């Protein structure tokens, strides 16, 4: 999965599931869009669907500090590479 593909899919998920449209790539989603811990858990489930595999507890723990779209995309690209 290229970075562009990952970005498009995440933007689509943010729009459809969280009503967040075209966020600033580096903006803190929690501060600007009230994206909270419940949303983060839901997003992780969507990322599992996107990758077609279950994430380990360790992989999920690494998402705790993620705040922005760019960080989410980095995370997904890295996971996609790891699962290849």
């Amino acid at each position, binding site marked *: 999965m290229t970075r562009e593909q990952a970005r498009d899919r995440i933007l689509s998920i943010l729009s459809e599931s*969280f*009503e967040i449209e075209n966020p600033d790539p580096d903006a803190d989603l929690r501060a600007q869009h*009230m994206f*909270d*811990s*419940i*949303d983060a*858990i*839901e997003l992780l*489930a969507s990322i599992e669907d996107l990758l077609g595999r*279950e994430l380990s507890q360790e992989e999920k723990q690494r998402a705790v500090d993620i705040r922005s779209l760019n960080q989410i995309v980095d995370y997904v690209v890295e996971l996609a590479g790891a699962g290849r």
Partner: protein
Amino acid sequence: MERRVVITAEACICPIGRSAEQIADNLLRGVSGVRPLREDPVLGPYLHSRVFGTVDEPIEYDFARQHRKTMGPVSYYACQAVKELLERAGLEPDFIRSGRLGVAFGSIHGSPTVQREVYSKLLDGEGPGPKRIGAADYLKSMVHTTAVNITRMFGITGRVISSCTACTTGSQSIGFGYEAVKYGLQDAMICGAADEYDLTTVAVFDNLLACSTAFNDEPHRTPRPFDARRDGLVVGEGAGAVLLETLDGARSRGATILAELIGFACGNNGGDLILPNAEGVEATIRAGLDNARIAPGEVDLVSAHATATRMGDVVEAQAMHAVYGDRPWVTALKSYVGHTMSACGALETIFTLYMLERGIIYPTLNLEEVDPRCAMIRHVREPIEAELDTVAVQSFAFGGVNTCLLLRRFAP
């Protein structure tokens, strides 16, 4: 320290309307909100009772996503009612967030719709069940989901009470909120209850032979409290909310006072968890009168619990007669909307406010031939113009819980 407590706003969603004008008009015209069951392929084929007190009106929930995401249907009802309540109340935003305003709100068991979805995911064999449980599913379905969705949506930081005592949930919310304000623990309380459309509740009462089944083809003719042909309760849905505050606080902000809440009692039968008990009900009524420091002869009207079960109505009539004789008028408001479960105590309190304000007693619907065993009390069988001063609202629940609220027309 005891402070006088007044009701300064109300809001509700119920099978006969949303606004005071609409509901009062339907009560006056004898319009029923009982309708045929909606289709339900899972439970529908097994139910004998085919009627439900249904909210058919579309409701505009213009809540932001961060609020919607933790709500099941029951919390939508609760938050919509409280949204309208706060719009009517005109409280200052600073007061709402001050910690001096609390919430007492409940439902019989959270959101059964969401609970059904969770169990379906676990048991449908279509994938890893536990992994499909959503992050917010518990928040949508937990017992205190109504109360805390209200606090979150409106930023309320005061105490939270979430009674879940089945059919006394709403009356306990008002009663416990009353005590919190009366004794100075909070300056105001948002009190009420909600329950959503749910056929598992129908199934429970159906299995206990407590549901009405004889009027499936004429839903508006049931339930029939105190009537000789009554054959059980009709489950309903809805939400009711009232704002309680100190008399001094209401006066200082120029609020409209709908009524004064002068007493509350809650007791238990101390025995069977299902069977109604005249001694227990009588004791609670007397405790309510003591708490209000009034004599039985001062009560003009009783809003009876009266679910239209064969035994419950007789027991309640006996208890009322033992305390009041045949002096106060008695009306049974579930005859219009069915038994809205947790919400009944709140909705019936609100309907009582309409009667106090308008000077009209709305009669028990479908009371065509009074059961001789219930005939010793003073039934209301058609609308009566009456200058009401003091009114009692009774609610009883599975578990043997009994409550009595006492309201009085506000005299400045």
